[in-house]
């Protein structure tokens, strides 16, 4: 049936110009919505965020309702991970620990993303002496191992204010250089593209060129590193709390639970494995999310 085929061809040809051209970010969103791993990590994160927001919905017992008579009790009905040395329900405490860990991870990622993003973008965009100064500062902070710098800062704050904000600040002060480096190189790449020449040719101001052209085009790597950092900083928080210089009671955090359970791990593994499981699953969810976001933004890896 030749008529039918040609008719279909006409329809398609006619339809083509009407179809909206898909932008980069729309394509990214489409790739995201097609990835099963995206839904898996999103589902895990929804559960974790739900725990952080309303822990009492998930916990089976009050985490502060401890019974010394049942110290290190085995797992059983109503107490999936058993009880810790103080006789507190490990599962409930792990659920309540989500708030501190997630909160710190998100806050530090955003802060370091903002600071590193601004420093890196300024260095990459303005170049010259601005770049020289900012890059040297970035290198200096990059050379100080994050964990060492943060733990020195935390001792500096001492017991006086070792709360959530202290941990956030200590991690942020030493966590931004990596973001700055990545942002700088992606901004420099975007700056050299032809569209910048075109923008300058039509009389676009430098500031407008930065906001309208450079930022959207160099956002990809920044977004990837900030997403991946979520899991990294949650781990760092737990390490700091595990060393005993991070969050302190009555705040419940996974690292601190691991710190407390460490000494009795050989006789009672669950008080340590419980929070470790929550920690691992959360970090896994963020890593998967970071992967999926990277693949969606940079599809060359797929081909």
């Amino acid at each position, binding site marked *: 049936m030749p008529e039918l085929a040609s008719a279909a061809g006409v329809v398609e040809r006619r339809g083509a110009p009407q179809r909206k051209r898909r932008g980069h970010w729309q394509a990214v969103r489409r790739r995201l919505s097609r990835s099963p791993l995206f839904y898996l990590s999103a589902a895990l994160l929804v559960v974790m965020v739900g725990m952080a927001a309303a822990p009492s919905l998930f916990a089976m017992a009050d985490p502060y309702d401890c019974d010394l008579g049942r110290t290190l009790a085995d797992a059983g009905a109503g107490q999936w991970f058993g009880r810790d040395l103080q006789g507190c329900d490990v599962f409930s405490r792990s659920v309540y620990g989500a708030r501190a860990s997630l909160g710190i991870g998100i806050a530090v990622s955003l802060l370091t993303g903002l600071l590193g993003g601004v420093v890196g973008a300024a260095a990459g965009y303005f170049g010259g002496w601005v770049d020289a100064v900012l890059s040297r500062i970035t290198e200096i*902070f990059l*050379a100080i*191992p994050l964990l*060492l710098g943060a733990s020195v800062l935390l*001792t500096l704050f001492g017991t006086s204010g070792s709360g959530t904000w202290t941990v956030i600040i200590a991690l942020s002060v030493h966590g931004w250089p990596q973001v700055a480096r990545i942002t700088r190189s992606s901004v420099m790449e975007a700056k050299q593209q032809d569209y910048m020449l075109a923008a300058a040719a039509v009389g676009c101001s430098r500031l407008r060129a930065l906001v309208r052209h450079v930022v959207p085009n160099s956002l990809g790597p920044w977004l990837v590193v900030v997403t991946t950092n979520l899991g990294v900083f949650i781990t760092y928080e737990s390490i700091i709390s595990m060393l005993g*210089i991070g969050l302190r009671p009555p705040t419940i955090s996974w690292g601190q639970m691991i710190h407390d359970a460490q000494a009795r791990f050989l006789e009672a593994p669950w008080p340590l494995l419980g929070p470790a499981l929550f920690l691992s699953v959360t970090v896994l969810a963020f890593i998967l999310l970071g992967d999926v976001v990277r693949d969606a933004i940079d599809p060359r*890896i797929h081909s």
Partner: protein
Amino acid sequence: MSRYIMSRVLQAVLVLVGATFVIFVITFALPGDPVQALAGERAADPAFAEAIRARYHLDEPLLQQYVRFLAGALHGDLGQTYSGQDVAQMLGERIWVSAQLAAFALAFQIVIGVGAGVLSALRRNGVADTGVRIFTLAGLSIPFFVTAFVLQLVVGVKFGWLPVAGTEDGFLSYIMPGFVLGSLSTAYVARLTRGQLAESLREDYVRMATAKGLTRVRVVAHHALRNSLIPVVTFLGLEVGALLSGAVITESIFNIPGMGQAMARAVYLGERTTVVGVVTVFVFVYVVANLLVDLLYAVLDPRIRYA
């Protein structure tokens, strides 16, 4: 080439001075009076306090103290702890312990990481690839201190294959902590190798090498892998910082008398000279490692020539 090296060395010196200065300023602001801490419960005798302050130059302005520290460090003198121990000497004894641990960790990262990466890149989406991906994901998400506790329990206590902690058993006692410290980045190395090698295998020069009749092994090892390793080497250089950070925890968990343990103790006790000393050594190692990585580029990628 020599001009490039000169500018890189100068840059490294700048980073070294800047980073030690940052740490110096931070530790200077540490709370608590070291003189009072020495005196214990009683109020310190003013004459004694003055003598101590003069001995440790605590009465000088911050900048002068820093310059004095730098001058000393150039001669290998990192000062004394408040209990009179020579910091450089103490760290000198510990640095070899840490170096051994780091060498084990690095070896695990390179052998397991690169090996797994190559394996999964060559058999993309096969059984080996899937297995490697699951293991790397697990390695990335399980915090390494948890790995340490579990290994201690299973391998150390239950089966008794390896010593649980300490360094009395020489070579054997470094295997478990080395693996734990290395596991921090092995997964990254594997992923990076896999991604880079998979990309290189599609390059024209690989097709060219295959076309001219080279064996598969030679194509992969000599042409594809060599070019894929550049980002891996960069990563390992940058990762030296994480390795040193990780040593603080690993050495604490496994009771290994290295620099990390000294650092953890010094931070806990507010022992400034030791903290500054350890960070100085760490930053030095980091800066030198990255300098070497930059120079290695030219060896790995013949297209890169430093004018």
